[in-house]
């Protein structure tokens, strides 16, 4: 499919978009926290991938490469958004709308999780995001990041340990 796109077949790229848009959008949503922002970042990521398709090595799934672009772009956009003044707090995703208190608490907790992941240092943040937000296997992460599988496991373990410390500190009043 990548070769067809490189040969100028845009319909092939449309097939790729339709095939991967769900997982790319969800990964962006889990990082950004807002559906509208997630769509924007997902769209940017597809355009970046289209322009950079010639540099794709072909080792590992193309979807995993797309997800790596999307997570990087989402974290970048999230950083820019946090630099700006947020006029409206994040709306909780999937929280019961009938219970305002539960919705508020759920929104706060979701925000804590998102920001804790975003605050992780690299390479832990990337591995955690690709595994839990992008739903990639560790083998796929090792392939797309070109790191040994054991290194990826170590990064994920350390990332989860750091995340647990951050979340525990947030939960403590």
């Amino acid at each position, binding site marked *: 499919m*990548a*070769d067809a*796109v*490189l040969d*100028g077949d845009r319909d092939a*790229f449309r097939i790729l*978009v339709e095939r*991967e*848009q*769900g997982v790319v959008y*969800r990964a962006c949503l*889990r990082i950004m*926290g807002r*559906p509208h922002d*997630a*769509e924007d970042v*997902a*769209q*940017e990521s597809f*355009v*970046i991938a*289209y*322009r*950079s*398709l*010639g*540099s*794709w*090595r072909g080792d590992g799934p193309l*979807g995993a*490469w797309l997800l*790596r672009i999307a997570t*990087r*772009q989402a974290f970048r956009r999230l950083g820019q958004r946090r630099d700006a003044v947020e006029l409206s707090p994040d709306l909780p*995703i*999937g*929280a019961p709308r009938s219970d305002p208190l539960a919705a508020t608490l*759920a929104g706060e907790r*979701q925000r804590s*999780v998102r920001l804790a*992941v975003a605050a992780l240092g*690299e390479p832990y943040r*990337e591995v955690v995001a690709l595994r*839990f*937000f992008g*739903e*990639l*296997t*560790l083998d796929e992460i090792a392939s797309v*990041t070109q*790191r*040994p599988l054991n290194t990826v*496991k170590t990064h*994920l*373990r350390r990332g*989860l*340990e750091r*995340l*647990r410390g951050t*979340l525990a500190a947030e939960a403590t009043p």
Partner: protein
Amino acid sequence: MSRRDFDPSELGGEPLDREAADELQRYARLADGDASPAFADRVMAAVEQAPPPRRGFLAWLRLPSAGPMRGLAQAVVLAGALALMAGGMLAAGELARWLRGSNLGGSPSPAPSESFVPSPSVSPEGSASDDPASPSESEPEASPQPSGSVPGSASANPSAVGSAASSPSETPDDSGSPDESETATPSQTETPEPTPSATPTQSP
């Protein structure tokens, strides 16, 4: 790609405290959904305005041969690249060997030249100094001059002293540490950096 729940056995080894993993799983289940139906159209509209992708070297090599000439061309270019790489490595090896040789005064490469150069002056002296036991022609190779000329070669070649002082700082560079620092940094050449110019088109 289907949803893949996290299983701590993926990590192997010692047991993992699942608290953070469970929290992430819960959050991922909540933050679920699909893009809007017009998402693909928006992406394709943005792609229409983007410059077409250019095939990089690696992608070009990945290309399935559409014809015999293309396959042949790929093989030729690949062979050329390999030859260039091999030539570069050989040249680097030669350079390293030359540097190493110039740093050590007693190394084998300068010694024959030192023993060879004084040989014309030595053999006439030997013949003139009533030493019949010394062979006239084969003496340059067998003479003890090389051992005696080692200090001389070091002093006769002052540039070698200066370069020898720098050799200890060069050798550790060859053994770079291959571990965490390298694996931790993803390659920037193949994975594109996001550029802010890819602005999304506004949905109606």
